[in-house]
């Protein structure tokens, strides 16, 4: 297990290096941050001065080398757009994203797995067929459409749920939470539902497929013939085995959503990290973009490692040597 984790760690570092290099490569073609920082009436000389002061006049490999040295010391530079440290700007928004995604993934997991089991037990029942057809919708309708439609129905016409934002929040230390107020929960419903749609559909289909396969296995037939209670057969014998891939996918989705739920966050003006990333891309705020990509990569890599470890815990057959 130890060597395995060390190996994964080294792989992670390689991925981070590669991702940061790609970022700097793209920056060469994605606009000129100096131009965004000098004001509308700047002269060429003033633009050049700013470019020099940012070190943007140097060749890209020198820029990258400088960034890397600073990053290794924990200094990710200053946002070009708001001129405060980029890392702080992103971390300040982490709680909002984390709360939204945690609730969404939790809901998707609970509902997805239970529906998956129900559907697998009676695949031909009418209700279950409708559920399966609906799940296709969840997978194929794009997030921005779901979000906009939900806003139009529940916020604009029915006026029962708020259209945007996080509602009232409470600051506890560095963490600003929306989970301790009614308005916070109300504001969470629509964006979480938007995120849940796709995840739910994936988990439902995965659980159903796994259950249908496992239910035909010999050991399940044995369990039935032994006269065990249906509850025991379904949950203890069948579902436990099905859960292994489901947990894997849930973990990966969690990492990915934390890093890239930017569409949902933008539609609902959710003050999370994804929302910030999108603004930074529009404004060529390169230091924020590259820092964000690094954080995203760290989150996804860690989610992967945690999932691998969990895998071993759930399934004793797996051993990392």
């Amino acid at each position, binding site marked *: 297990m130890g060597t395995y984790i060390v190996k994964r760690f080294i792989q992670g570092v390689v991925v981070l290096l590669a991702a940061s290099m790609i970022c700097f490569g793209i920056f060469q073609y*994605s*606009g*000129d941050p100096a*131009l*965004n*920082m*000098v*004001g*509308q*009436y*700047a*002269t*060429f*000389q*003033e*633009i050049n*001065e*700013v470019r020099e*002061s940012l070190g943007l006049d140097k060749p890209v490999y020198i820029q990258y080398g400088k960034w890397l040295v600073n990053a290794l010391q924990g200094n990710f530079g200053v946002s070009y*757009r*708001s*001129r*405060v*440290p980029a890392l702080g*700007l992103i971390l*300040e*928004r982490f709680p*909002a994203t984390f709360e939204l995604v945690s609730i969404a993934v939790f809901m998707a997991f609970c509902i997805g797995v239970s529906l998956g089991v129900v559907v697998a037990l009676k695949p031909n029942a009418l209700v279950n067929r409708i559920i399966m057809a609906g799940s296709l919708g969840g997978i194929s309708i794009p997030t921005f459409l779901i979000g906009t439609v939900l*806003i*139009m129905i529940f*916020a*604009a016409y029915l*006026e029962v749920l*708020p*259209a*945007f*934002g*996080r509602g*009232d*929040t*409470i600051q506890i230390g560095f963490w*600003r939470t929306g989970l*301790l*107020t*009614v*308005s*916070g929960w109300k504001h969470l419903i629509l964006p979480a539902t938007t995120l849940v749609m796709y995840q739910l559909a994936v988990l439902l289909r995965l659980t159903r497929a796994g259950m249908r396969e496992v239910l035909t296995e010999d050991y399940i037939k044995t369990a039935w013939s032994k006269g065990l209670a249906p509850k025991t057969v379904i949950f203890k014998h069948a579902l436990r085995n099905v859960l292994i891939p489901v947990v894997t996918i849930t973990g990966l989705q969690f990492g990915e959503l934390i890093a890239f739920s930017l569409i949902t966050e*933008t*539609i*609902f*003006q*959710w*003050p*999370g990290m994804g*929302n*910030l990333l999108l*603004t930074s891309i*529009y*404004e*060529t705020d390169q230091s924020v973009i590259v820092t964000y990509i690094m954080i995203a990569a760290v989150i996804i890599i860690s989610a992967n490692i945690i999932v691998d470890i969990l895998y071993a815990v759930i399934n004793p057959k797996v051993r990392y040597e």
Partner: protein
Amino acid sequence: MKKNKCKFLWLLSFGLILSIFASAALAGDTIIVAQDTAPRMMNPHGDDSDSGLSYFANFFDGLLQRKGSGGELEPALATKWERPDELTWKFYLRKGVKFHNGNSFNALDVKFTFERLSDPKVSEFTNTGKSIASVTVIDDYTVEIKTKDPIPWFANNMHQVFIMDKESTEKREFSDVFEKPIGTGAYKLVEWVKGSYIKMEANADYWEGVPPIKNVEIRPIKESSTRFAALVSGQADLVTGIPVELFDKVKNNPKLEIIQKPARRSIFLGLENKIDSPTADIRVRKAIYMAINEDEIIAKIMRGHAFPAAQIPDPPTIGYSADIKRLPYDPAKAMELLKEAGYADGFDITLTGPNDRYVQDAKIAEAVARYLAKVGIRVKLDVKPKSIFFPELTKGILNFYLIGWFDGTFDMGRTYFKLVHSRDEAKGYGALNGSLYSDAGVDALLEATADIVNPEKRAKALMNLNKLAMDKVAYIPLHYQEDLYAIQKSKGFTFNPRPDRWIVYKEIMP
């Protein structure tokens, strides 16, 4: 274990009840605004865009201000100002004004502010800052500013330069200055949660009297359909940037009132005139102008929310001339002109433009391409995000492009030096002249205006210049935009939009 759980639940529900009471306390003289742009920072010199200045204008004051829907220059922190000679500006300061932290405002703060402008680390007003030769404190309430060259529009810009407190700005950490504004303005910042809201409260000691609206909560929402939902569901009292597609929906909603305001920004097309390029020929330039059906662009693409423009400056700008008329839409004449110029079979040209900057910008560019195709000019369309478009514009590598502009100083001189003057890197002219348009006659006339101080003479000279530039089709003007706002009728706010799109809350009446 179970007991603990119970306790936690009790605490949780107690917290929930508390928060319900907390939200019920808000009422009355509070306005909630859904704005289309979020602030970048709270350092008033670090962002010279209209969206940034719109926020700063509530926390800070300039030496002068522009109030209300007309935009006339009025005293603010300076009670009067004069120009003893071409290079000198003298400001007499208001007495008894206090910053939000209690410090008194005096001439040292003004000196500090103007010297800070030239530091690119904290300022986007370096152009203004570096044009200043010296700032002299004559006494506590008199300041004399000398510029390096004569700048006729210097005072016109003084509503955009916000005065900061010398003592606290020097003392505070860099990041604190960038996030917590300390000004003399009508509102104090209560809380800024990035991405969520900006809350401000009326400044009880404001020199102009306490503003009528006591609490302001601004919620920036980028997505226009979400902004619309916030408006329709009553979550916002005032909403900016209503998209033209949703105009009818807002108009037909009995709870809402839509407010229309002709915007100062004009949209126009830049066109190269390098020797050997087809567009160097004035006949070709006119042909392109006449081939574009602007009325149809306004009706179909802008859905009526724009006004045809015959020139770049808008009517309140010095240099606007009512005598300039648009060339008529006449594709037959356009084809004739092309034939005369030797382009009977047309030619190829690339039209570049932003797709996230102006109202319907990409669609306007598409329409122009279609109109030109009808007279035989083959247009390759190249629309892209503004972050990529503007660097190309600054490089001066474009042949034909769409851009919009208005000048905060209400003086066309500064704008024309940027947009129309031949590029001169040393003098900083023509920085936004994206196709390196160059005309010696226009340049000479423009340079001659720089020394003209007398407002009447200046207006006349700039009008002449404007006429000449339009006769030569230096640019092809399209239209002025219209700003659209909506308010909840039931809240009874009186809101008269400003021409510069700033929202200054002391001007809104409950």
